[in-house]
């Protein structure tokens, strides 16, 4: 097990280094860090002097090491657009995105798994067929269109829910939260549904096909023969065995949710990292783009690692395999 974790760690570090190289090239060669720091009327000599002082004339590998060192401390230089430190810009917006992503993921799981279980147990029931059809439409509709439709119905026509912004937030230290005010919670509803809908359909389809598969196996028949209640069979035996792929997909999708928050945040004017990233793409604000890229890569890698470790918690077969020295893969 230790060898497996070590190998996964090394792979993760390799991915991060590659992304780091891309981010470094963007930061150093696509944009010019000097232009962001000085005014129009700074002379060439002063620029050259500053360049020398910041180490921009050093060999590229040395600069790369320095860039990674700074990045690890959250120092990404100044934004071209607002001239604020990039690290602070991102930290200010991180809570908004993470809370939204968390709510969307919970929504997708809490609604998607029961829907999948139901349509897996009763595949021919009309409710299951309706759910299948809806999920096909859910996969085909782009996220932003779902958001617009929800705004149109619930905000413009019915005037029930707010359609933009975070509502009221409460600051807890450096973290601003939506969870403590009614307006904040209301503001979360539509964006979370929009963001979570695609994942919901994915989870539902996955649970459904896994359930269909598991229900045909011998141990389910045996459990029936033993006279266990339907409830114990469906949830204790069947659902439990569908969880490994569901955890994989749900975990990997958590990363996708954070990335797709870009679209949802734009639709709902949600002041999160995704909106910051879109603005930085529009203005070619390279330091923000580089920092966002690194942060997302870090989150993705961390999530993948946690998902791999969760396997051991969920699937006892893996533990015994590794114990017997066969390795997990």
């Amino acid at each position, binding site marked *: 097990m230790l060898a497996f974790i070590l190998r996964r760690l090394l792979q993760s570090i390799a*991915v991060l280094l590659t992304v780091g190289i891309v981010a470094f090239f963007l930061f150093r060669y696509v944009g010019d860090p000097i232009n962001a720091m000085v005014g129009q009327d700074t002379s060439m000599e002063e620029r050259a002097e500053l360049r020398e002082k910041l180490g921009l004339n050093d060999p590229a590998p040395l600069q790369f090491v320095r860039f990674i060192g700074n990045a690890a401390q959250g120092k990404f230089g100044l934004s071209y657009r607002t001239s604020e430190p990039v690290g602070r810009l991102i930290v200010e917006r991180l809570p908004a995105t993470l809370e939204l992503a968390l709510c969307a993921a919970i929504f997708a799981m809490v609604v998607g798994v029961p829907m999948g279980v139901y349509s897996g147990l009763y595949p021919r029931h009309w409710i299951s067929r309706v759910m299948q059809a809806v999920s096909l439409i859910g996969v085909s509709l782009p996220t932003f269109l779902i958001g*617009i439709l929800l705004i*149109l119905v619930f905000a413009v026509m019915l005037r029930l829910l707010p359609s933009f912004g975070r509502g009221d937030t409460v600051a807890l230290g450096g973290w601003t939260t939506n969870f403590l005010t009614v307006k904040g919670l209301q503001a979360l509803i539509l964006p979370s549904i929009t963001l979570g809908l695609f994942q919901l359909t994915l989870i539902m389809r996955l649970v459904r096909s896994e359930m269909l598969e598991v229900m045909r196996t011998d141990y389910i028949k045996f459990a029936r023969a033993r006279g266990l209640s339907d409830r114990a069979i469906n949830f204790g035996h069947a659902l439990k065995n569908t969880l490994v792929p569901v955890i994989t997909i749900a975990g990997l999708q958590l990363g996708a949710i954070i990335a797709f928050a870009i679209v949802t945040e734009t639709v709902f004017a949600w002041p999160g990292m995704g909106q910051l990233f879109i603005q930085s793409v529009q203005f070619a604000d390279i330091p923000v783009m580089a920092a966002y890229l690194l942060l997302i890569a870090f989150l993705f890698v961390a999530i993948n690692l946690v998902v791999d470790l969760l396997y051991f918690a969920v699937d006892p077969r893996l533990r015994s395999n590794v114990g017997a020295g066969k390795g997990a893969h």
Partner: protein
Amino acid sequence: MAATEAVSGWLRRAADSDVWWSFKRSPLTVSAAIVSFLIVAAAFLSPILAPHTPFDPATLSLLDGLKPPVLVGEGGEWRFPLGTDEQGRDVLSSIMYGTRLSLLVGFASVVVAMVLGIGLGLVSGYVGGTLDAIIMRVADVQLTFPAILVALLIDGVVRGLISVQRHDEIAIYVIVGAIGLSFWVQYARTVRGSVLVEKNKEYVQAARVIGLAPVLIMLRHVLPNVMGPVLVIATINLGLAVITEATLSFLGVGLPSTQPSLGTLIRLGNEVLQSGEWWITVFPGVTLALLVLAVNLLGDWLRDALNPKLR
């Protein structure tokens, strides 16, 4: 004479094939094909069929602005069946021209992704060694990120390299390139996998023995045998490419409002959605959804029809 015979022979074989049979048997697939055909035809014939030319300022009148669709609100006119936007552009015509642009970008970016992916996959599988390792590691890293993020990043980098006016002129090429570059991995992996299987077969060895150049062996002998799965991925990717383009344009980093695609139209309409002019957003949105749904259904059908395991 020989040509017509060849065509009719091909048609007869096509009509006898099980692909055609499975197509006829599925009413959902047939309707998806009809819907796709109608949308594609309306889009590409838009210069002839569209009632107005929405982007010729000479034909626009602000007095026609914000008219609702005919059957819904008061003040609708038959000249503008789906209403007009605030500048008096006919929504129906805008949709037809916009769909044409969306489809063009979708097709072009799938072709870019396909050519790039097939090329890298062939080289990777046939040459092997360090080159293979490098290409596949890059593919792994890129696959860690959702395609939309990669496309956004490429778009942002291009914006950093060239000026804004210049960017609007070449926006369509930038978008095609960005989407193409963000979708190549799937093709490369599939082709590489098939090439690894094919390259040890006797016909490839024979070609090598008679001294054909590696490029020729790859293109003339290996490639035709790995094309099946590639075409299935391409069909499924077409819907995805159209969605990605629409999303980028909606986010304001895709096609500019002077050459609006469906995504751009939805973004422009979204800005006035709060005041109740829903038709400017909803009709392009419905068109996009129908188009993607139909293309996805066709892709799913093609995947199943070409998969011998499911027969």
